[in-house]
Structures are given as C-alpha cells and as structure tokens.
C-alpha cells in the first residue's frame, strides 16, 4: 500500500527511447492501467517500477522514497504475469506459502493465510494437488493468489488475462476489481486491451511511442480525448475520424473531404473555426453511437447520405459501415431496417463532434 511517483523518467535501450520523460503520480490504493499498443513502453515502465530496469534518467519513488538502491525482493512488489510464473512441480499449497516462508512468517500464520487465500480464490479443494494439474483458469487465480498473499506494497500485473477464454476473462475482471477493493492495494495493470483498462482502472495512462498521451479516469479518456491517438485507441467500434481541409463559405466553416464532398459546419459551436486559416487540415471525430439515422433532430447537426456496405452484429449492437465519397462512417444503430446496399441518411450531432489538428493530432477545443 504505497503511492508511486514517476518523475521525468526516461529509459533508453541504445538508440531506442522506450520511455520518454514520463511523469505519473499514482495514488495510494489506486488501480492504474498502463494502456497502449505493443512496443509503446508500458512494460518497460512497469519493469522500472518493479526495479528490474533502471531509468536512464529520472526517478521512481514509493511514498516519496527513492528505492533505487533497494533490492527488488525487498521492495514489497507483487507480480502477476501473462504466463503465470507458477511452480508447476509444487503443490498449490506450496505455491501459496512460498513467499511467506521466504520472509520467515511463523508457520501457524502461514497456514491461516494460505487457507484464507485458497478459499478466497476458490481453489481450497486443490491445495494438496500439484499446480500442474490445474486448469488454465485456476492457474491464473493461483498466480494472483500467490502474489496477493504476501500483501505487497504495490501489485504489478502484466496482461494477466490475455491467455484466458472470454467467459472467464469477464469473470476475472470482476474478481480483480473486488480483490482490489478488498485489499486496498495499489495496482498497476499493463494491457493493450482498452476494454480491460476501461472496466478495471480508476485511472488510465494512455501511452504511445514511449510518450504519455493522456492520464485520466475511463470516461475522461473516452469523452474528452486529448488527441487523435487517444480518440482512436479508446472505444470499440472506434471513433469515426474524418480528415478534411478547412474552408469558409458565406462566413461559415466547412470541411472539404475531397473534390466532391464537403461537410458544412453550421452549428454555432464551430463558429470560431473561421478564425483559423483556410487550408488547415482538420480531423472531425464522432463516436458511432452518437450518429442517428433519419432527419435532423437539431438544426446545427450535420446531415449526410451514404450507402451501407457491411452490417456487423456485435452482441446487442449492429454496426453499419457506410460508404460516403471514399470515406467510411461507422454507425452504431438499433434501426432494424438497415440493410447492406441501401442508401441511408444520417446525422452527426454537432454537440458530440470533436475536432483535432490533423498535423499535430492535438485536440482543438471549441
């Protein structure tokens, strides 16, 4: 149970900068997800927190204390990896008790804690069996249990759910959240899966190419992305990102997508865009669930027409992929009458449109 301070931390491997001047303040008892595509530097960051890698520059502190000279095993860090790291030749009991034996906890207390944890993880009937006899799902429970039992100051989890089947993954997601509430442990969770990050974390650090893109709670990164990368990475199906050139016609801004397609930005929200230079490349972003079919509900909404290309059914949702002048727009619609090949009129609600600078990717706040 510690807070973690990552200050101006950079990690270089030769010419490669894996982590670039990272600053993160993780609070005591907080569940933080490090989220990004493979190679973004999230695992390197975790390894530096653990002490397995040393920052090239900058500091990592626990409760404000510099642990650079503390041995890894004395830092009070618990680990859960994707590949379990379980002693398969030992019994379930031994796997659980090992960390306590190493730290010389009295035998009677070990027994109590092992039994409590086994009950907690629903594997008490397996205690005397070899870990190799466990199912994949039970192994991951054991892996979490054997780390949690030592009551570490911080808990690091590296893609712990990625080998599990989807039903069990959903179950473990809930379970991890309950565990964290129970133990009030600081958890740092590395994942490339935005759904996992959204559903588990108190706050998400979105990382790309070693650089922190945004640090905020799940709905903050979803509703208010700071740049195109975050907008595109968070959410499924992904946000529609429509790139075009800014023009002004009769005092109103427009976005020219191509020689034949222009989107009028009539709503008052967009009025300040006329102060920007015509010719600016902009990206208009709108999430599929905000787009509606049929006539405009609000005067400033952007009405468009396209042809439905493919309709996907994803659980209770239907996602229509609509072709419009060489662009594809994804619409998450509950309209049961949509069919492939059909022409469809739809609207982008002005109040839900986000704008980005196409060159820098940064959000334009209007």
């Amino acid at each position, binding site marked *: 149970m510690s807070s973690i301070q990552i200050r101006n931390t950079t990690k270089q491997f030769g010419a490669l900068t894996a982590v670039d001047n990272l600053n993160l303040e993780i609070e005591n008892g907080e569940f933080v997800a490090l989220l990004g595509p493979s190679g973004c530097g999230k695992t390197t960051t975790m390894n530096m927190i653990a002490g397995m890698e040393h920052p090239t520059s900058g500091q990592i502190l626990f409760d404000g204390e510099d642990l650079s000279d503390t041995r890894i095993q004395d830092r009070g860090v618990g680990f859960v990896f994707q590949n379990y790291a379980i002693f398969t030749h030992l019994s379930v009991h031994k796997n659980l008790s090992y960390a306590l034996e190493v730290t010389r906890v009295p035998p009677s207390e070990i027994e109590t804690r092992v039994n409590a944890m086994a009950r907690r993880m629903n594997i008490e009937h397996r205690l005397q069996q070899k870990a190799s006899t466990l199912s994949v799902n039970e192994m991951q429970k054991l892996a979490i249990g054997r780390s949690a039992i030592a009551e570490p100051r911080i808990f690091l989890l590296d893609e712990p759910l990625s080998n599990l089947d989807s039903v069990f993954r959903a179950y473990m997601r*809930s379970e991890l959240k309950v565990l964290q509430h129970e133990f009030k442990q600081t958890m740092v969770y590395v994942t490339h899966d935005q759904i996992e990050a959204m*559903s588990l974390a108190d706050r998400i650090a979105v990382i790309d190419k070693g650089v922190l893109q945004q640090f905020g709670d799940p709905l903050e990164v979803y509703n208010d992305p700071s740049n195109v990368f975050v907008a595109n990475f968070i959410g499924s199906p992904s946000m529609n990102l429509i790139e075009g050139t800014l023009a002004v016609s009769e005092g109103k801004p427009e976005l020219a997508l191509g020689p034949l397609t222009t989107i009028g930005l009539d709503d008052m929200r967009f009025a300040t865009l006329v102060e920007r230079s015509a010719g600016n490349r902009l990206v208009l972003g709108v999430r599929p669930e905000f787009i509606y079919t049929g006539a405009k509900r609000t005067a400033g909404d952007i009405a468009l027409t396209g042809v439905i290309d493919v309709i996907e059914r*994803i659980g209770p949702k239907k996602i229509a992929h609509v072709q419009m002048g060489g662009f594809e727009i994804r619409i998450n619609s509950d309209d049961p009458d949509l069919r492939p090949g059909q022409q469809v009129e739809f609207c982008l609600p002005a109040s839900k449109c986000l704008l980005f600078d196409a060159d820098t990717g940064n959000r334009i706040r209007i």
Partner: protein
Amino acid sequence: MASISLSNVRKNYPKFDLGPIDLEIKDNEFFGVFGPPSCGKTSILKIILGLVSPDEGNVFINGADATDARANERNIAMVFQNLALFPHMTGRDNILFPLRERGVPVEEAEKQLARVSEVLHISHIIDKTPDKMSGGERQRIALGRAFVRDPAGFLLDEPIAALDARLREEMRVELKRLQREGNHTFIYVSHDEEEVLGISDRVAVVEDGCVAQVGTPDEIYDRPSSIYVARIVGSPPMNFIEGRFSTATGEFVSADSHLRIEIAPPHVVDNPRVIDATIGVRPENLAVSRGNSDGTITGTVLSVEPLGSFTIIDVAAFDGAVIKARLPGQITFDDGAEIRLGFPGSAVHLFDADGRRYPAAPAALPEAE
C-alpha cells in the same frame, strides 16, 4: 465458388473424437466456425482441405464426393493464422509462388497477379519483403497468395488473430467485402465471438468435436440451442439461474424461491408437469431501476464498469448470486446502491435439465419421462 458439405464425418484422435459432423456450406456463403480453443474447429478445416481423411463419412465439393481426393485436387485455398509467408521473398514472389509451382505461363501469372493486386489494393507493397510490411499488409499478401489460384473455396483459420485490436476490426470488415465482391465461399474459423458473429452469414458453433448449433448470427444470439451456446456467445456472458419451470402455468421459480417469473403463456400439454430448468437472461435485457419502482428482485451494486457507449454493473442479488446488467450510455451508481432488476419474460431463455433450449420448438414439447 463452391458448395461444400460434410456428411456424418467422424475422426478419432488419440485424445479426442471428432464428429459425427453434418454441415452444408452454400455457394458464396461466408460461413463461420466458432468455438473455444481445441474444440475441433481446425480438425474440421483439415478434413475439408484434404490434409486429414475422415474415418467415416463423406466430404462433398460442388455436390461431387471428394472424400478421397487429395488436397491439391480439391482447389481449396487455406490462409493460416501465422500466414506462412516466405520471409526472403517479396510480396510479389510470395503471391506468384503457387502459380510457378504449377507451371503457369509467366504471362498468365502476371495477369493473375495484376487482378489480385487490384482487388486487394496491394500494388504499392508487393515489392517489399514481409519484414518491411505492417501486420495488415502481410495479411493481405497471404490472402493474395490464396486468391491468385482462383480457388473454389477459401478456408481461413484465425487469419487475423495476430493483429492488434483496431486492425482486427478493420480487417474483418475488409474480408467480408472481399468475399462478397468476389462471390467467394469463405469458411472462417475463429475463437473470437465478436469476429465470427460480426461478419458471417451463418455460423456453426462447435462443442467438444460436435456441432452444437448452426444458424445466422441473429439466431445464435437470440435463440441459442443450449446453455453451452448461450454461455460462449455474448459479452459479458448471459446470466443463468437454476430452478423449476411449470409447463402448466408458464412460471419459473428459482431454486431458492426468490425469483418468480412468468416466462411463457401456459402451454397446452396433455400432462402438465414441473421440470428442473435453468433460465438465462442477457445482461442487456435486464430492466434496471433505482429505488422502489417495479422490478422482480432487489440487489446492490457491487461494481460499475464504464465502457463509454455502455455500462456494465455487477449486482449482488439473492443468496450471493452476482448478476451482470448492461445499460446503454454512461450511467453512474454509488457502490452499494440498492436497485431493482426486472426480468422481462419475453427476453428470458429457458433450458431444461440437460441444458437444451426448452421447448426446443413450439410443436415439439417432449413427453414426460
């Protein structure tokens, strides 16, 4: 273009028995094969491809018995999960390889290459070697190598599993487009429910070497034939509650009597009776309300997962059962908030003691034991 069918196909492996399997895959169909890892999906593909011969049963391609035909006589192309591109060859040489192997004249081969490049939009990458390509580009080259033979059908075994999430979403729609534009027969194997159900015309759900259900994605999602199918399709998974069902009153009562729901209008049956049953209700079909409004049961909110376009809540209900509900939009609850859950009878799935959908079909109520 091909129709492919399997009739009573069986194959015994040392640790695993496949079949009997009956499948009819129509000409130009995008046919999904879905199931958890090692349920027998890939074995079915190998039998269709001719890499494995069945112990019993027949494989028909375009109506002709192809059971004894060798793989290279079946004219079916396979795209593997690991793509199996030659790393030292350019995209062009990878695509041309199967034609060169068959001694197709250079001029004809180039013509095929041009056709495939246009369809797959790969002209700008075919001179690169695979290590210089992105995951999506490699994927397209692998498809190109399958397409260039102009095969009767395509088998795709988890073809996009190795790509990252965003690219997978794009590629699966692209595959659907390719299949439809070219009028190809696709057999698409995956353990990813969202992927298979998203783009297939019909899907076979495989359980332990047998086909549990075949149907359109809507049929499988809305009318799963068994608890097994209901459980592996849908995320978060369906909620299940055990209890008893009266065929006379159409009422279900949970094992601990906390939950009573009118599921179906009473069936007119000769011998009304009460059966052991399980009900399933999808998280999005639960009616969630706050406070004291109408609802079937009360519960407390354990946790809230905000996923942006929807919200999942875990609710502790009677006897410690945890029920998951999915609500559209962004909704906040305090931890421990008291809520009510309604179980709309029309959205409740009923299964008998063997885990089969009940009644299997309106006219087919089984007799009492």
